[in-house]
């Protein structure tokens, strides 16, 4: 019942917590490209070292960073098995009907699974160390150039930050409704699929109604205070990047570069 939600911000005092969120977003993108460029054993070893370093510096617990494994385990297994069975390879170890088990297939499966795992670890660290509002502001400022191709980035930014701010509220409301329906006899914890499916509606409908109700109230409140769409709004002042931000950015770029060329 009291699981830690995946991807939650955990206030802290580490170096990574104090970095500019824009820097963290860019570094994250760089690290993802690094992951995608990696496909050899030494490459994964060095990613592992990198991850250990990142967890150490960010003071995020391994348990938190790997929190997703439980819910993704089946998914990862399926990916691995599919790759192993169906990868087209010149020298299968053994073949039966349309299945060809090969070393190449296993390697391919391991590759995909490892990439997903590293990706999830890095995003867990990003989310654990970045307050949602900071992330929303960072996204907004990184998206700003898109204004020039007429994408309404201001409205997008408002939408994102409103959504982000309402996540805890909605989670609390969901929890309350879940409890209320449980008390009325809904069987969310039942092992039987039929009962589980039947308990979806009592949860989903009130949550949607609640979300619409809140959206209604919020839009009234925003208009009452003079909000008229995104254009010409006062800008939040951007803090300039500090020395450690630039250093972090360079480190991420260097890691990406080295990883891509060395392995």
């Amino acid at each position: 019942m009291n699981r830690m939600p995946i991807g939650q911000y955990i206030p802290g005092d580490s170096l990574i917590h104090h970095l500019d969120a824009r820097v963290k977003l860019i570094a994250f993108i760089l690290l993802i490209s690094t992951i995608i460029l990696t496909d050899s054993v030494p490459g994964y070893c060095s990613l592992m070292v990198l991850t250990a370093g990142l967890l150490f510096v960010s003071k995020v617990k391994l348990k938190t960073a790997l929190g997703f494994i439980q819910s993704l385990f089946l998914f990862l297994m399926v990916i691995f098995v599919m790759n192993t069975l169906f990868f087209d390879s010149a020298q299968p170890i053994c073949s039966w009907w349309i299945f060809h088990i090969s070393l190449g297939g296993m390697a391919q499966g391991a590759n995909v699974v490892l990439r997903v795992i590293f990706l999830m670890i890095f995003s867990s660290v990003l989310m654990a160390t970045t307050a949602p509002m900071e992330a929303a502001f960072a996204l907004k400022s990184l998206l700003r150039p898109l204004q020039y191709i007429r994408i309404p980035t201001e409205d997008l930014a408002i939408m994102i930050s409103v959504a982000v701010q309402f996540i805890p509220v909605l989670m609390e409301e969901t929890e309350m409704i879940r409890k209320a329906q449980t008390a009325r006899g809904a069987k969310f914890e039942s092992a039987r699929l039929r009962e589980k499916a039947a308990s979806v509606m009592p949860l989903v409908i009130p949550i949607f109604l609640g979300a619409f109700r809140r959206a209604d109230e919020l839009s009234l409140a925003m208009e009452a205070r003079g909000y008229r769409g995104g254009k010409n709004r006062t800008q939040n002042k951007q803090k300039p990047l500090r020395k450690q931000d630039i250093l972090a950015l360079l480190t991420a770029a260097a890691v990406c570069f080295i990883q891509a060329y060395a392995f």
Partner: protein
Amino acid sequence: MPVELDQVSYTYAPGTVFEAAALDRVTVSIEDGEFVGIMGHTGCGKSTMIQLIAGLLVPSSGKVLLDGCDINDGGYRRGELRKRVGIVFQYPEYQLFESTVEKDVAFGLKHLALNSAEVRSRVAWALETVGLNYGEICRESSLGLSGGEKRKVAIAGVLAMKPQILILDEPIAGLDPVARDSFMQLLDRLHNGGTTIIIVSHNADILGDFTRRILVLNKGSLVMDGAVKDVFSDVAQMEALNLDVSRPRKIAHLLGQRGVAIPQDIVRYEELLTALTHLKKSGGLP
């Protein structure tokens, strides 16, 4: 069917940075047919305590016993618990979701192995009990009703289960005085019918008028437990806990401080009036 909490503690999100100890070794026993009020400052653990009684939370340590059986023991049947203990949360109207009022009220009954005639009579009874007309309202969409009616429908959904213990978390917050009084009358009728009622509220007047016993929580601990007049007799401590006593009690307290010889176990307006009339007759009032 008594409810017993035996050294019950509860901690939210243990082992994380969000860890919050909400209840600390609370021991209390509530007998059949009692009408109990729970008071306490916001965040003191009232909601946590009643959710533990309803089996919606599992204690971090200690036991919750119903009729002497541990409800969190593997052998205890959840269905039995849901049938016996009904809980009404603060905004019960938000849990409605069915296409008609009738279906919404009957939601919990699906699990009780009743035939359709029994279900219908229970739904009718529950709706009439909360003061709605079954014939008029049962085919309406529950989402199209007014706020007050929605709340009544949601409460009818809990009553339809005929719980022996009815728990309510701040049910009268935000109701107008008329709706509040008729709601409390409803609880009183259920209580007279033998239902155990446990109600969380900040409204000392209402608790003084209707409940017989009050539990006071402070920072997760049970600090007071007793008959209403005993709990309200200690005005200073209640004030130290940031809580009201009922207004008649407060008036008697202030009069007492000014040297008027008025009894200090007054809780309700009638008692205050009787005492004042008595004083006037005997010349104790200027």
